């Protein structure tokens, strides 16, 4: 056990986490030049494109250290986004230390801080690493100062590297060996293994990623998941090299995988404890939480013929991502679809993109919603995440919505505009801190629903890209909610209904109306577009009728050409959704449903 080091790299997005991981892997000789593919740990296209890690990965690196001994360094790569902070916390709980990576040019960012807190909560040894020191814009001294002042860490403890150029890699590996403590645990005790991830393998079923704290596990053992007491017979255990590498057993302190005939990843809970059925441990490892979706939206196929394909795609998708939950949903305007629950907006984006890219689907996503809580006259409390299930307004006596604590860091010249944005987004109880010369950190309590709606875009744009943002879900608070319906010539377009704060209803209604107006082509009739709360019209706009479309001349030579044009128009019209007598193109739904979170 004393030759094992379990560690993770944590960093703000784009600070070079995956590049450093690749370098460490290369340096320890696990992958040679031939098998080396950039950023081995980020295996999904989306991960590479966005520069973020979505799923955890683990790899065991044999490393011959300066002291002449060979160590097994288990690198657990963590998802780099707040949506997956629970997974991150479980991965960190499997480690004894972290490399806290900071971009030498960008310095400490909101996520750097969030990650640091997570590491501290897990009592991990923290090694600050300043990356990208080769950049012309690198300001190492400033970052050292930030490590001292903003992070409160010993500034002498830092390492410098350029993962891209391969500078400082050896020093990092030595520091992992020297400074991160070896795992602790009772090798003779009853098995206690922490599940930090699970992946689906089409041939073997679910591959459980775990860290063994106490005891050991080998093939043939009957294991038990402590969350629901289900039992499975272990088929195979092993380590992660570049691929799975079978071993006789996994012992205390080790990181590896267990295959035990578990059909889907949904049968496994991240953070759960595995123990032996005939010799269970006394209590599960701490920190387990059931993951609950916080953002909800409906997915519809653009062409209703693709409904079955969408159903199959979702089924396949969730084999590997148990955090996406879904059930059937239907809309008068958009037909059959699914109501889905996501861990956050990035998760929603990832699901949408993967469904489109990997399954070749064209899908339409409804306005994202949070889960609201209503207290009704009869005393019951009901949770609603789908506007179509909004309770009868007459029966509502109280409404609540989820709040977050949002942490934003930025150069202080942007404070004014950021505070203005946060106040507009119903932010309260702000807490401002100057973390260093010219740098500010501001914390707001804010409704989660407000960041679902054009927050990221505006935050990034007003801070000109220098601001960083992170959030934690906190609690439910009383709110004043209303159901905003959109009517086209008096007919409700159910897919466009939204639950909104009453103070914002008018503005949101107007925005939806305006966006529809831009996308719905003029028709022979005037089209009234309205936003309504109950019977009250809160926003209104009109698309005037076109009055002339006929061509002046239509003689022998014009007829064919005209017919072809009309045939094209007719085809286009067929693809539109009819709401009453109004033909609405898909682009109009997209325009309204677009949540501006990209």
């Amino acid at each position: 056990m004393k030759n094992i080091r379990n560690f993770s790299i944590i960093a703000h997005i784009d600070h070079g986490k995956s590049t450093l991981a690749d370098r460490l892997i290369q340096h320890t000789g696990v992958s040679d030049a031939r098998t080396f593919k950039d950023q081995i740990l980020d295996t999904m296209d989306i991960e590479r494109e966005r520069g973020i890690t979505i799923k955890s990965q683990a790899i065991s690196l044999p490393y011959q250290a300066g002291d002449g001994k060979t160590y097994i360094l288990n690198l657990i790569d963590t998802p780099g986004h707040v949506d997956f902070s629970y997974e991150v916390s479980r991965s960190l709980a499997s480690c004894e230390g972290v490399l806290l990576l900071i971009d030498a040019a960008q310095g400490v960012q909101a996520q750097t801080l969030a990650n640091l807190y997570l590491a501290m909560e897990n009592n991990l040894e923290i090694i600050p690493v300043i990356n990208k020191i080769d950049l012309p814009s690198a300001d190492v001294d400033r970052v050292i100062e930030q490590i001292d002042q903003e992070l409160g860490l010993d500034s002498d403890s830092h390492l410098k590297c350029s993962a891209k150029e391969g500078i400082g890699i050896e020093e990092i590996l030595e520091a992992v060996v020297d400074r991160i403590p070896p795992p602790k645990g009772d090798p003779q005790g009853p098995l206690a293994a922490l599940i930090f991830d699970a992946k689906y393998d089409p041939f073997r079923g679910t591959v459980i990623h775990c860290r063994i704290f106490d005891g050991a596990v080998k093939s043939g053992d009957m294991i038990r998941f402590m969350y629901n007491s289900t039992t499975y017979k272990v088929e195979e255990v092993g380590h992660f090299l570049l691929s799975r590498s079978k071993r006789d057993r996994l012992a205390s302190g080790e990181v590896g995988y267990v295959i035990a005939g578990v059909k889907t990843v949904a049968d496994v809970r991240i953070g759960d404890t595995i123990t032996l059925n005939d010799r269970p441990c006394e209590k599960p490892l701490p920190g387990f939480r059931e993951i609950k979706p916080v953002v909800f939206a409906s997915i519809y196929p653009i062409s209703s013929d693709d409904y079955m394909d969408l159903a199959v795609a979702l089924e396949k998708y969730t084999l590997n991502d148990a955090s996406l939950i879904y059930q059937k949903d239907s809309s008068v305007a958009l037909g059959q679809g699914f109501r889905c629950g996501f861990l956050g907006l990035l998760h929603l984006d990832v699901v949408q993109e993967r469904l489109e890219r990997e399954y070749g689907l064209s899908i339409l996503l409804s306005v994202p919603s949070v889960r609201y809580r209503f207290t009704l006259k009869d005393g019951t409390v009901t949770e609603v995440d789908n506007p179509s299930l909004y309770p009868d307004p007459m029966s509502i006596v109280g409404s609540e919505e989820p709040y977050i604590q949002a942490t934003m860091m930025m150069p202080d010249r942007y404070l004014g505009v950021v505070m203005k944005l946060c106040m507009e987004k119903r932010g309260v109880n702000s807490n401002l801190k100057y973390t260093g010369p010219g740098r500010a950190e501001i914390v707001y309590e804010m409704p989660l629903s407000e960041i679902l709606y054009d927050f990221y875009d505006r935050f990034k744009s007003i801070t000109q890209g220098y601001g960083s943002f992170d959030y934690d879900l906190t609690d439910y608070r009383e709110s004043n909610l209303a159901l905003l319906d959109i009517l086209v010539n008096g007919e409700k377009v159910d897919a466009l209904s939204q639950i909104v704060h009453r103070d914002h209803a008018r503005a949101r209604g107007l925005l939806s109306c305006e966006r529809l107006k831009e996308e719905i082509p003029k028709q022979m009739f005037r089209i009234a577009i309205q936003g309504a709360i109950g019977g009250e019209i809160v926003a209104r706009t009109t698309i005037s009728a076109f009055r002339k479309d006929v061509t002046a001349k239509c003689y022998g030579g014009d007829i064919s050409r005209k017919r072809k044009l009309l045939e094209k128009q007719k085809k286009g019209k067929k693809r539109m959704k009819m709401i009453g007598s109004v033909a609405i193109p898909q682009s109009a739904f997209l325009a309204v449903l677009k949540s501006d979170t990209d």
Partner: protein
Amino acid sequence: MNQQNHTKHPGIYIHIPFCRSKCSYCNFYSTTAINRIDPFLNALFIEMNLCGSSWNRFDTLYVGGGTPSLLTMKQFSDVLSHIRETFRFTENPEITVEINPADMNLNDLKSLRSMGVNRISIGVQSFNDDILAFLGRRHTGSQARRTIADAGRAGFENIGLDLMYGIPGQDIPSWAETLEEAISCELEHLSCYQLTLEDDTPLGKRRQMGEFLLPDEDRQYDFFMRTSTILGDAGYVHYEVSNFARNKNLVSRHNSKYWNHHTPYLGLGPAAHSLAENRRWWNKVSLTEYLADIHSGKAPIATSETLSTEALRLEALFLGFRTKEGIHLENFNTRFECDLLEEKAETIEILQNSGFIRIEDGYLRPTPSGMAVADSLSLI
């Protein structure tokens, strides 16, 4: 109102593909190589012979262009005698020639009349010389006035003018003046076209460069409705989107064949279109290619298409909604094996209530404001 000079007989169109100069808005096919008129006419006669005798008796001949009035009287006479030798006609065919006011004097018009031409269509466009210059017309307002008077004096009893509105800088009062002057001539037929610019015309290019704006759609509608009202008040029947006749018997018999969509027509000359049953074909849109085909003994056809029932149905709708008469429901239902009113009951009711169409004497008819959106009506 049921019989609008409609017949079952086919019509012939001859395209004379020559212009002395190209008007800046026009995208019809023509060439300024007028030294090739004779070779063209020789080829035209060969094309007539190639067309065979499968056609029924024709009851209209329409000589358009281009600028037919560039032909000499001798050339006109040759065309007319050759066509009479080659094709069979009914007893009183409508024979129309389009003329440019710059080209013909009283004697020319008299000889045209004596050759049997009984309808004349004068490309006036405007009486305003500034507008005529903008449009690139090579005649003046006073030339137009003289030609109109000469046509009457030459014995023509069916005279039509082409006029144009929606020209940059033109307002409705000034257009109304043009209309009043045309009305005062007491002619049989007026065609009033809204200026429409294709991008590949000189004016179209200038518009793309942002040199001027065309009236927006609301203004276009105002022009259209004012035209309908002014001419209606003067006793003209607004029988097609852009066409007005002093009474229902004076509608263009030839052009009505295009809109009725029942009767076949034969087009001769470059770019001319023909229709027979469910087949449409058109000639090469180049004089050189046209001549080459004819000289190698081939029909100068560029493309032909066989119209599916669905295509025919769409054409019947968009052409029908262009005309005051509208769509004859029984004929339509028989032809396309459907029940139009039942199929589209909901939409038709809305359109009726909004004043776009009405059902009358077994026809589905557009109102004037319905005619203005005929293209959309056809997509119901």
